[in-house]
C-alpha cells in the first residue's frame, strides 16, 4: 500500500512494514522508519499507511495465532506439541513414583523369625526407580515455563531450546536406567533363576509385583515421550536457510 509521499517497504511477510518517507520527514515518521514495528507513528502522513499495517500485524495476514506460515509458525506448532507432551509425560512418571512408593504388602503367613513383608526399599533398584521417577516428574514441571517461552517467541528461543534438549537427554538417560534396573528385578521376581537358585517371589507377593510391573511400563512410556521431545527440539533448533 503506497501513498505519493511515503514508500512502504514490506518486511517480515507484511507484518511490520517500515515506512520511509521521501518527503521532508516529520519526527514521528523517522521514528517509525528506524524501528521495525510501527508502534506509534505520530506524523499524519504515516498514520494512514501505519494504521492498516497495525491491523494486519495483529491479524497476521488473517491467520490465527497458531497457524501462521513460515519458519516461525512451524516452530510455534512444534512448541505447542512440546508443551502438551511434557504435560502428558508428567502423569506416568508421577504415577509410577507414587505407586512404587506405596507398594507395601504383608502376607498373612508368618514364621517365628520374620514376617513376609515386601516394600520398595527392600530392593535398592526400586529405590533408585522411585527417586529417578520423582526427579523426572519434578523436571517436567520445572521445564514447562521454558516450553512456554518457546511458544511465545518461536524465532528467538534457540538457546532455551538447546538447554531443554540437553536436559531432556540427561533426564531420559536417567529414566531409562531406572526403568531398566527395575525391569530386571521384576523379571527375576516373576521368573526366578534356576542357575543362581533365585526363587520367583511373585507367586507370593502378587499385589506388590503387579504394582511394580505397572510402574515400569508407565516409565517406559515416559521414555518414549522423551525421545519424541528430543526429536522435536532438534527439529525446532535447526535453522532454515534464509
Amino acid at each position: 500500500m503506497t501513498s505519493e509521499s511515503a514508500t512502504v517497504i514490506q518486511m517480515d511477510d507484511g507484518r511490520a512494514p517500515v515506512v520511509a518517507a521521501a518527503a521532508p520527514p516529520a519526527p514521528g515518521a523517522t521514528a517509525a522508519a528506524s524501528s521495525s514495528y510501527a508502534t506509534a507513528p505520530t506524523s499524519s502522513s504515516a498514520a494512514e499507511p501505519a494504521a492498516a499495517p497495525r491491523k494486519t500485524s495483529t491479524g497476521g495476514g488473517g491467520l490465527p495465532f497458531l497457524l501462521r506460515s513460515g519458519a516461525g509458525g512451524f516452530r510455534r506448532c512444534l512448541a505447542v506439541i512440546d508443551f502438551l507432551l511434557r504435560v502428558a509425560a508428567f502423569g506416568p512418571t508421577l504415577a509410577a513414583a507414587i505407586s512404587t512408593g506405596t507398594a507395601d504388602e504383608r502376607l498373612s503367613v508368618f514364621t517365628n523369625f520374620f514376617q513376609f513383608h515386601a516394600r520398595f526399599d527392600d530392593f535398592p533398584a526400586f529405590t533408585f526407580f522411585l527417586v529417578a521417577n520423582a526427579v523426572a516428574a519434578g523436571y517436567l514441571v520445572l521445564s514447562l515455563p521454558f516450553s512456554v517461552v518457546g511458544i511465545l517467541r518461536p524465532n528467538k528461543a534457540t538457546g532455551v531450546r538447546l538447554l531443554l534438549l540437553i536436559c531432556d537427554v540427561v533426564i531420559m538417560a536417567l529414566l531409562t536406567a531406572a526403568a531398566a534396573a527395575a525391569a530386571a528385578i521384576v523379571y527375576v521376581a516373576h521368573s526366578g533363576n534356576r542357575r543362581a537358585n533365585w526363587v520367583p517371589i511373585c507367586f507370593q507377593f502378587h499385589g506388590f509385583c503387579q504394582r511394580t510391573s505397572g510402574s515400569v511400563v508407565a516409565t517406559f512410556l515416559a521414555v518414549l515421550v522423551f525421545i519424541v521431545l528430543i526429536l522435536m527440539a532438534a527439529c525446532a533448533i535447526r535453522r532454515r536457510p534464509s
Partner: protein
Amino acid sequence: MWEDGLCSPNQLSDQQVPYQGETCIERALTMKGSSEHGETSKAAPLGRGVSKGVSVLDLILRFIAIIGTLASAIAMGTTNETLPFFTQFIRFKAQYSDLPTLTFFVVANSIVCVYLILSLPLSIVHIIRSRAKYSRLLLIFLDAAMLALVTAGASAAAAIVYLAHKGNVRANWLAICQQFDSFCERISGSLIGSFGAMVMLILLILLSAIALARR
C-alpha cells in the same frame, strides 16, 4: 560504483560485496577498519574452524564409544566359569546366557556397536561438508534411540550384577559371587565400557545439537 581503485572485483571477496544502499567506498572503508582489528576477516574462517572441530570431536567420540561397546560385549559374551567341585546332580557352571538380562546386555551392546560403526561414514561426511542439516537431524534421533538402548542394557545388567554381589535378604536370593569369583569379576568389569559408551553418546547428541544451532 566499481570504478574506483578500492573496489576492483579481485580485491573484494564475495563476502565483502556491498549491499544496496551503501556505496562501495563506504564498505571498503569499514572492511579496512575492521580488518585492522582482525574481526571480519577472521569471523567466517573461525566459524568454519569451530564447525570442523565439532565434527572431528564427534568422530573421535564415536570411535571411543565403539571401543567401549565392543569391549563390553566381548567381555560379557566370553564368560564361562566351571567350579572344580560338583555333586551327583548338578555341575556348578556359570555363563552369561544363564541370566537373560546379561544376554540382553550383550545383544544391546552389539546392536549399538554396529550402529556406531555404520554411522562413522555419516560423521566423516559432516566433517567434509558442514552444510548437511537433515542428516544431522537423523543422527540426533538415532543417537537418542541408541542411547536409550545402551542405557537400558547397562542398567539392567548393573541391577543383576548388584544382586549377584549382595543378594537380597527379603526375597531370599543368595549372592552367587561368593562361589563364582572370576565370573563375577568379568561381568562387573564389562559394565564399565558400556557406561562409558553411554556418556559418549550423551556428548555426541550434545555436539550434534550445538552444530545444528550454530548455522
